[in-house]
């Protein structure tokens, strides 16, 4: 699993490291790819100085499936299900980004009803994704119970998704140009019930964690990322906002129906793990707010714009980004006028956010590495694509 290099006591002579009577060298520890807390198949090579991290290197690619390459050999519609498999815990968001990008490329706009339902489902998906993050993050830090609570609530969301489109995880909920399915009959009621419940449940999580001394001790001051660093490394999403940078594409470059809803962008102050926790918790509340507004005003009308059966976008290129639960999810699509995209490049938030890992982990203990991986909220499917 790991190699050690040990230095005998009082070795004389050569070597640049200062020789002390009881000196010892650094230890290289491979965390992952098979490790319960690397959330999939991330491998982190840790250079340890005692229990302290002196440096780290993330080795990725264990889950590489060539998603971008596959896109070049599929029609635009055929490729849509593939994007669900990137951030597989937030498939709806992935789909939204892709559909909107292709729509933009084709110059089509989804009907208003479709837009609101899309927003509603995407926000539900955001909550689900954040719940999964909270569950695993808390478990990594040693709190068992939030896991089950979070899964309980996530289950409700998945049920709504299932009722909507028949799938729970890789939903393929949207179609290019709008929706395939209209909202089912009791969807508004279901969502409202969920929202009411969830606001109470979120208090439960905070009771368990927010004021807990151990939780505070494990998260405050751990993995600090300053706003400047975050911007410099292109970090986005809650990680960026927790560092005090107010940047949310939903507000900055509204897409779907976000311009119709009121919501706040929570930001943090210190950029530590605790702030990221607080930011995500508040984001879930804001998502509930959006959902509640959305169910009130789903406009009547068609759900699918006029798009042909064979999509042939004009020659050109487009970049469209949305605020996925984990950060900026961007699609850059080049069309050569055929039925297949010439090139699809995806900017996955997890991949970019993972860059900040080394910066955040340096000087912390091994146990913090687990907390930091958790707080980055990465999904390896998306990192490796």
């Amino acid at each position, binding site marked *: 699993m790991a190699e050690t290099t040990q230095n005998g*006591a*009082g*070795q*004389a*002579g050569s070597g640049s490291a*200062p*020789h*002390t*009577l009881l000196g010892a060298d650094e230890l290289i520890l491979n965390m992952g790819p098979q490790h319960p807390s690397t959330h999939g198949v991330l491998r982190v090579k840790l250079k340890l100085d005692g229990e302290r991290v002196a440096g780290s290197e993330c080795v990725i690619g264990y889950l590489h499936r060539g998603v971008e390459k596959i896109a070049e050999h599929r029609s635009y519609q055929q490729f849509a299900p593939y994007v669900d498999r990137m951030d597989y815990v937030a498939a709806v968001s992935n789909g939204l980004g892709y559909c909107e990008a292709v729509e933009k490329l084709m110059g089509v706009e989804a009907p208003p009803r479709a837009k609101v339902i899309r927003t509603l489902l995407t926000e539900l998906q955001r909550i689900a994704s954040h719940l999964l993050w909270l569950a695993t993050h808390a478990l990594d830090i040693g709190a068992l119970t939030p896991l089950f609570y979070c899964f309980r609530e996530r289950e409700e969301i998945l049920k709504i998704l299932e009722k909507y489109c028949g799938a729970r995880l890789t939903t393929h909920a949207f179609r290019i140009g709008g929706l395939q399915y209209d909202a089912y009959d009791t969807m508004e009621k279901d969502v409202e019930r969920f929202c009411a419940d969830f606001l109470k449940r979120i208090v439960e999580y905070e009771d368990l964690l927010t004021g807990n001394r151990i939780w505070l001790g494990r998260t405050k001051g751990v993995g600090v990322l300053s706003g400047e660093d975050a911007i410099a490394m292109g970090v986005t999403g809650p990680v960026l906002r927790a560092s005090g940078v107010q940047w949310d594409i939903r507000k900055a470059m509204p897409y779907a129906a976000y311009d119709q809803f009121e919501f706040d962008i929570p930001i943090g102050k210190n950029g530590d793990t605790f702030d990221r926790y607080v930011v995500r918790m508040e984001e879930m509340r804001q998502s509930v707010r959006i959902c509640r507004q959305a169910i009130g005003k789903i406009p009547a009308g068609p759900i699918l714009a006029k798009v042909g059966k064979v999509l042939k976008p004009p020659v050109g290129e487009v970049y469209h980004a949305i605020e996925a639960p984990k950060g900026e999810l961007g699609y850059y699509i080049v069309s050569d006028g055929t039925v297949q995209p010439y090139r699809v490049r995806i900017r996955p938030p997890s991949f970019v956010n993972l860059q900040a890992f080394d910066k955040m982990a340096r000087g912390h203990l091994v146990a913090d590495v687990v907390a930091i991986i958790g707080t980055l909220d990465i999904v390896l499917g998306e990192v490796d694509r």
Partner: protein
Amino acid sequence: MFPPREEFLRVLPILIFCGGGTLLMLLQPFLRSRTAFSLLALAGSLTAVVSVGCSAAHPGAAFYGLIGSDPASVFFEFLVGAVAFLVILGSASYLERESLAPAEFYALIFFAAAGMCVLASAREMLTAFIGLEMSSISSYILAGYRRESPKAAESALKYFLLGSFATAFFLYGIALLYGSTGTTVIAQMTPLAPGLLPKLGLALLLIGLSFKVAAAPFQLWTPDVYEGAPTPVTALFSAGPKAATFALLLRIFVEMPLAAGEWTRIFWILAVITMFAGNLGALLQTNVKRILAYSSIAHAGYILVAFAASNEIGVAAVLFYLLAYAAAKLGAFSVVAHLGGAGEKRIELDDFAGLAQRQPIAAAAFSLFLLSLLGIPVTAGFFGKFYIFKAALASHLIGLAVLLGVNSVIAAYYYLRLIIVMYMREPKEETAALPFPGAVTTVLALCALATVYFGLFPNHIIAFASNPRLFGH
């Protein structure tokens, strides 16, 4: 239940050293200035030296007779205190030059001094053992205090390993003595039953202590340890633990009913091989620190001659000799410590060539100390050796006296060689003079003063040391 006040006064120097060391450690996180620590340590050790007077004013046993104050303990406590004071005075500039942390250094010296004081005044073996350990463990650490230097690491490790071995002997000796006498109080150790057990115990005790005073055949560690340790620490090693250990040895062989008799023969042998081991070893050395290290082995041999004599003059001679020796050795090592320069790189014989031209006063002082170690009249060393001769002759140990003389002649060779190098040989390369800081100069002046003063007027000390109630109760 609580012990009366004077019992505390009797052990005041020990308490001050322990308290001072702890205080230094406590202040370490808060004080940043080196000078502050040096001043504190100086004040502390000075207080300890003064408090010896307090202990002298209240002679008697303390703490259920485990420890106490009598003229001998007062003498040795004073000696140890003075050595600690001078070492601290001389090491401030050294520590700064080698950029070593001052607080822990001084604290360790304090604890070492406390241990030596315990050793000098303990009247019971377990107490003595703890004193011995305190001084030894502090010494091991001090020896390795220059952590970057592999030599220091070697020195500390060697000292530690061999020292713990010796300690084990000592402790085993105590156990056997306790088993055969039923007590650990030195003065009450009479065997319950005749047999070899108590003798074996005493022999083991002697082995342990011989190691500490660097007597042959347990001297092998000395040159390496002395060479690798920071030189002020070497100065402390050569003067302090030796004096304190000899104090305990004296107490054992004067007070312990068991120890009377045939032990003189053992000391005879020990003295002879120690003298030869030290002096012959020194002849081959070119490193000044190692020369001085071998010379301290030889001096342990001279002192053992007085033990072999085992009479009252001998006891007085031991005391006086240790005083003279401490002054000379401290002075000599202080010179070496300073002239060694950064990283102690310049301590070969050649580096001292032409010192007389560069730094005439330093050369003169160094020569004075060397002459005292050699035992030339007008220096304290002369009278030290004189009284040892006298003691040996008084016990009709003619052979031993002759061997002592032979050794002095051998010793003359390397001491004088060093002086000749300083005065007559041209330096190989131009080297700049290293002016002495005030503190080191003070140390040298005090040592020189003591060397000359006791070389002229030995009578006070001799009169004091001839007190029949030296180890009183």
